[in-house]
């Protein structure tokens, strides 16, 4: 039935266009034999109409731009950055956007205004004006100056982001990507990450840490990325299978993870999750999102489906490089907390050396209660120290 209807609609559409063509033909039969083609060449009337439409189109572009700015103008990528370098990035972004908006407004105006103002007219002849070295020099040199400024500023920020002082005290974290999830590894007490390769992946050792490396014993695995506020973090990134990209929009941070290679990104988180949740902009945005979700939940309820959970702000890590069928849902939570909270959390975590040993030889340490680590499980702490001693 639907098929038949579609055929009918398509057929009707065809007839409509055909009729349209015919009407256009009939209205244009005033030309001399041999000159009929003139009906398909723009006349003064066409020039007029299209000239005015050009002017109208200019208005359309401006109105659309303004509408978009008003409606969706609060962009988390432009304000409330959560990292120290983010402020510089945002400043550069605002300056660049300013330049872009200015040039866009002026040039679009000139283009469409000229199209309107000089619309063709039989009585007029165009001005023969083919060259002007001075003008061309001006509009070569102005972009040169503006762009030099942007390039220099950009490179200064870029170098600040990409390099760090090796002497500085930093926190090392491994960000590990795989289809379709993230794992994080901390250096533990010594803040040194053990060596790793995918060939060592086995059981609980999901990121392939080389357990023969002494530095690896106290490594800590996590499913969430927890970071202390105000401390420089060097994120060492690896991938297990295909390219992924670790994208932290709130922190103005992104780096691809590449199988067979370690990439890195350095940042200093500057706002804790708790603080960010209280920012006015964020509160507004969260409310807006929850309104949308409530509306959607009502629709779902009518269909008898489960309602959506209310949204609370959290920093997220997204995958931003096409990586397979569930690319759209490869995410992890990022938590920024005070250094004290972070330290105590890290201390409570089980050490990888112990976890692997437990998994391999449960009978070797019968007195210890074995707990299988899953992302959401709270870890039993006391046993850690005991096993660490056993290993020593």
């Amino acid at each position: 039935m639907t098929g038949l209807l579609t055929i009918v609609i398509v057929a009707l559409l065809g007839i409509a266009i055909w009729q349209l063509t015919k009407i256009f033909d009939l209205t244009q039969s005033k030309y001399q034999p041999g000159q009929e083609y003139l009906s398909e060449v723009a006349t003064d009337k066409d020039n007029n109409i299209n000239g005015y439409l050009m002017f109208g189109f200019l208005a359309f572009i401006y109105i659309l731009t303004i509408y978009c700015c008003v409606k969706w103008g609060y962009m988390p990528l432009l304000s409330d950055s959560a990292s120290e370098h983010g402020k510089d990035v945002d400043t550069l972004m605002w300056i660049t956007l300013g330049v872009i908006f200015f040039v866009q407004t002026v040039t679009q105006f000139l283009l469409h205004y000229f199209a309107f103002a000089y619309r063709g007219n039989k009585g007029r002849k165009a001005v023969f004006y083919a060259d002007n070295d001075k003008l061309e020099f001006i509009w070569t040199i102005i972009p040169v100056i503006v762009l030099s400024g942007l390039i220099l500023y950009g490179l200064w920020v870029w170098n600040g982001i990409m390099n760090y002082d090796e002497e500085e005290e930093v926190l090392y974290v491994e960000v590990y990507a795989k289809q379709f999830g993230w794992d994080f590894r901390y250096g533990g007490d010594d803040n040194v990450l053990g060596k790793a390769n995918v060939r060592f992946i086995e059981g609980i050792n999901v990121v392939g840490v080389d357990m023969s490396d002494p530095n690896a014993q106290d490594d800590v695995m996590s499913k969430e990325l927890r970071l202390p506020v105000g401390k420089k973090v060097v994120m060492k990134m690896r991938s297990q299978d295909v390219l992924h990209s670790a994208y932290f929009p709130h922190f103005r941070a992104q780096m691809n993870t590449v199988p067979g290679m370690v990439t890195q990104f350095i940042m200093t988180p500057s706002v804790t999750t708790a603080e960010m949740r209280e920012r006015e902009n964020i509160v507004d945005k969260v409310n807006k999102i929850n309104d949308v979700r409530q509306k959607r939940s009502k629709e779902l309820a009518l269909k008898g489906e489960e309602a959506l959970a209310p949204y609370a702000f959290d920093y997220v890590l997204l995958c931003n490089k096409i990586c397979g069928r569930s690319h759209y849902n490869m995410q992890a939570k990022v938590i920024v907390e005070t250094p004290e909270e972070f330290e105590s959390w890290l201390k409570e975590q089980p050490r990888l050396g112990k976890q692997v040993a437990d998994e391999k030889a449960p009978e070797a340490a019968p007195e210890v209660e074995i707990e299988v680590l899953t992302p959401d499980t709270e870890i039993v702490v006391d046993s850690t120290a005991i096993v660490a001693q056993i290993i020593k």
Partner: protein
Amino acid sequence: MSALGHDLTHDHAHDHHHKETFITKYIFSTDHKMIAKQFLITGVIMGVIGIVMSLLFRIQIAWPEESFRIFSWLLGDEFAPGGVMRNDIYLALVTIHGTIMVFFVLTAGLSGTFSNLLIPLQLGARDMASGFINMLSYWIFFISCVIMLSSLFVESGPASAGWTIYPPLSAVPEAIPGSGTGMTLWLISMALFIAQSLMGSLNYVVTILNLRTKGMTMTRMPLTIWALFVTAIVGIVSFPVLLSAALLLIMDRSFGTSFFLSDIYIAGEVLHYQGGSPVLFEHLFWFLGHPEVYLVILPAMGITSEVISANARKPIFGYRAMITSLLAIAFLSTIVWGHHMFVSGMNPFLGSVFTFTTLLIAIPSAVKAFNYITTLWKGNLQMNTSMLFSIGFVSTFIAGGLTGIILGDSTLDINVHDTYFVVAHFHLVMGISALYGMFAGIYHWYPKMFGRMMNKNLGYIHFWVTAVCAYGVFLPMHFIGMAGLPRRYYTNSAFPMFDDMVDVNIIITMFALVGASFQILFLWNFFYSMFYGKKAPQNPWRATTLEWTTPVEHIHGNWPGEIPEVHRWPYDYSKPGYEEDFVPQTTPLREGEKDGGHH
């Protein structure tokens, strides 16, 4: 030059003794005008397929995971069980849409068509330097189209790794089903495509350098020819690199080498690859991939320069500056590929270098934009459809080009890389702009190609709806990009932080649906006018260039008798001292008259 030209004249006389059959005239034709039409019609068909694909995934992203009849019809129960699009098929559609539009429509369909049509006609040549290679080039293109389309019917699905086919995703079938047979067909199709592109480009370069008629010096060539010439050279420089990348990828996929792969653990086991690097592939890919966007946009620039000048009845402003900026853009385009890789893990110092070279491109681009605008100033604008599309081209080229300043800056790219901001940027600056260039070319040279006029009013409706919808789609898209939404997501519902952007996606899809459906008007106009359009005269737009001195009916060898001689540059519109507002290139200079924009 004269020797070759002479030979061709001879061939031409000789040809008349042969009786042309349907096959030699319409199928295996060596005539450049017929080959141009073949490229155009194939390009239009591929364009329809590519655009329909984009509508399908736009519907999915606006109303995620809902069931649509149209999915069942077009994709079948395998790819859209119960009318819900499968998530890997979403990626497949995105991939094939990109591939088809970039290569098959905007490279072959645009420069293939207009290089073939205009190079001999505007230069005063009987045909291309090698008609046979030209024919071969089309038929290899045709085969590559067939292979690409056949990959849509493979059981595991077509290639799904994005049009950039980064390994390991494109190399390991365990990573995504489309990397099985679908990817193999993609690679074979592209290898053939590159072969045909090289054949065509070499032919264009040789023809332009050797077969210009008497008086047609390089500085008297129309800007279309300059643009097509530079395009062909850029193609020859960069396409072979993609071919080698494709061959190495085939080796990795099928013969166990490790050029691009290393340390991969997938589906529970470690693969044998060791020592390769996906970043190497990215370098090789973008060494073509970036110049590729200029292969797409340069012909459009050439076409619109010509169309704007002819319809403004005014010389193009800064002819020499236009050529210089073409050359500058072409040169720079080969040393900026790294701006696609700021966050790929390559050395940050390289990032600085590529930022510098990339932002340099803005300078010749700005010169071009200002020259276009100045050409309109104090003109006598004839608002033919081709002119509207050319003005539209300048508008979208500026709007899209400006955001390139953000993406080309390594610092800012960190945050908007691979978001919808990028999608909006390149669709405006190379997608829509090049498409407008193509439409401008079609409307302008249709009388030359088919001997008939296209309907004017249908053309106007086509332009205005397309123009409104193009901005309606891509302007709001910048804003979802700025909100941090990554591209190539099957649905945005997995992240509540994007929930307030749902309405943007719906608006975009609406504009896309309306805009695309009005292309039917164009298709109608295009095919209907071929048979029922008003008969075209020799020079309907009163233009100066040589192609309008050929007879309306196509003949082998283009001009009956002698090839006309050229005496002046191609932009003598509204020249003082002449009664008509155009002086054809074949008109001899008067005594004391200066050539080339001076008077």
